[in-house]
C-alpha cells in the first residue's frame, strides 16, 4: 500500500510518516495540494492520501475536489487529517469526497483505526498480541 502525506509542516509529515510506515505503507509526501496533484499527474498515484486542510498554495479541500473530479483517481482513498473540527467543515469535506476525517491532535492508534475501517491494512498483517 502507498500513502501520500500532504501537509505543509515537515514535522507533521514526519509524525504521520512514522505512523504509516509502521503499518507497512510506502510513503510519498507533498507540502500542499498542488504539489500532491503534480505528483499524481506524473504517475505517483497512492492508495490513500492523508490530507491537511489549511495549507498554502492549495488547501486540502480544493485538493479533494480536484482528485474527485478526475475519474482515473476514483480508487484513491482520501482521509483528512486536520485541526478543522467544525461540523460544517467535516460535512463539506465528506460531501466533496473525503472518506474519513481525523482531527489533530491524534494518536497513532486513531490513524491505524481509521485505516483499518477503510480496509487499507493488509489482512496478512501481524496483529500484536
Amino acid at each position, binding site marked *: 500500500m502507498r500513502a501520500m502525506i500532504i501537509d*505543509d509542516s515537515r*514535522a507533521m509529515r514526519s*509524525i504521520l510518516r512514522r505512523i504509516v510506515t509502521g503499518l507497512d505503507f510506502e510513503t510519498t509526501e507533498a507540502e500542499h495540494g498542488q504539489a500532491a496533484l503534480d505528483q499524481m499527474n506524473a504517475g505517483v498515484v497512492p492508495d490513500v492520501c492523508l490530507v491537511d486542510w*489549511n495549507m498554502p498554495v492549495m488547501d486540502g479541500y480544493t485538493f479533494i475536489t480536484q482528485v474527485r473530479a478526475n475519474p482515473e483517481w476514483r480508487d484513491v482513498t482520501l482521509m483528512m487529517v486536520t*485541526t*478543522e473540527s*467544525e461540523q*460544517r467543515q467535516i460535512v463539506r469535506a465528506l460531501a466533496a469526497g473525503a472518506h474519513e476525517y481525523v482531527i*489533530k491532535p*491524534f494518536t497513532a492508534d486513531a490513524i491505524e483505526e481509521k485505516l483499518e475501517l477503510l480496509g487499507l491494512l493488509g489482512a496478512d498483517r501481524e496483529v500484536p498480541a
Partner: protein
Amino acid sequence: MNVLTFFDTAPDEVDAPSVDDVQALAEDVWMALVGEDEVLVPRMVPPRTPFDATGVWSSSVTVSGGWAGVVTVELDEGVAQQLSARMLALPDDEPVTDGDIADAVGELVNMVGGNVKSLMPGPSVLSLPAVAAGRAAFASDVTEVCRLDLAWRGGPVRICIHVPS
C-alpha cells in the same frame, strides 16, 4: 520584535475559553506531538510577568469569524529546539536548524489555535501560522483574556489568547 494586529472588526462581546480548557487541549496536543512519557507541567506565574526565557520563539494564529482572537504560543529556545528535534525525529547528532524550529512551532500553534477555535462560536476561519525568533508584541487594541504558563523539561512555555478590545 514582531507587532501582531489582525482584526478588521471587534465582536459584540468578549468571549474566551477557560484556562482549564486551554490547559486540557495543550496537554492533548503536547502528548500527540512528543508522546506520553513527558508531560507539560503547570507553572504559577504572577499576572503581567514577562515571559521569563532568555531566548524565545513566538508563534501565533488568528481566528476570524463567529469568534475573533489571536492564539499565541511562546517557547523557551531550548524547549523549541528539543520539541522540534522530537517532532522531526532528528538523530541526537543532527543540529536543529531555525527552519526546523519554525516548522515545528508553526504546527504546534496551528494545533493549539485550531482546538481553541473549536471551543468558540463559529463558523470561523483559522489563519496559517506565523512564527518568529524573539518576543511578539501586541497592538494596543487587543486584550489578553487567557494566559497559561507551563514548563517542559524545565523550560517555560506560555500560551495566550488575545481578543479585540
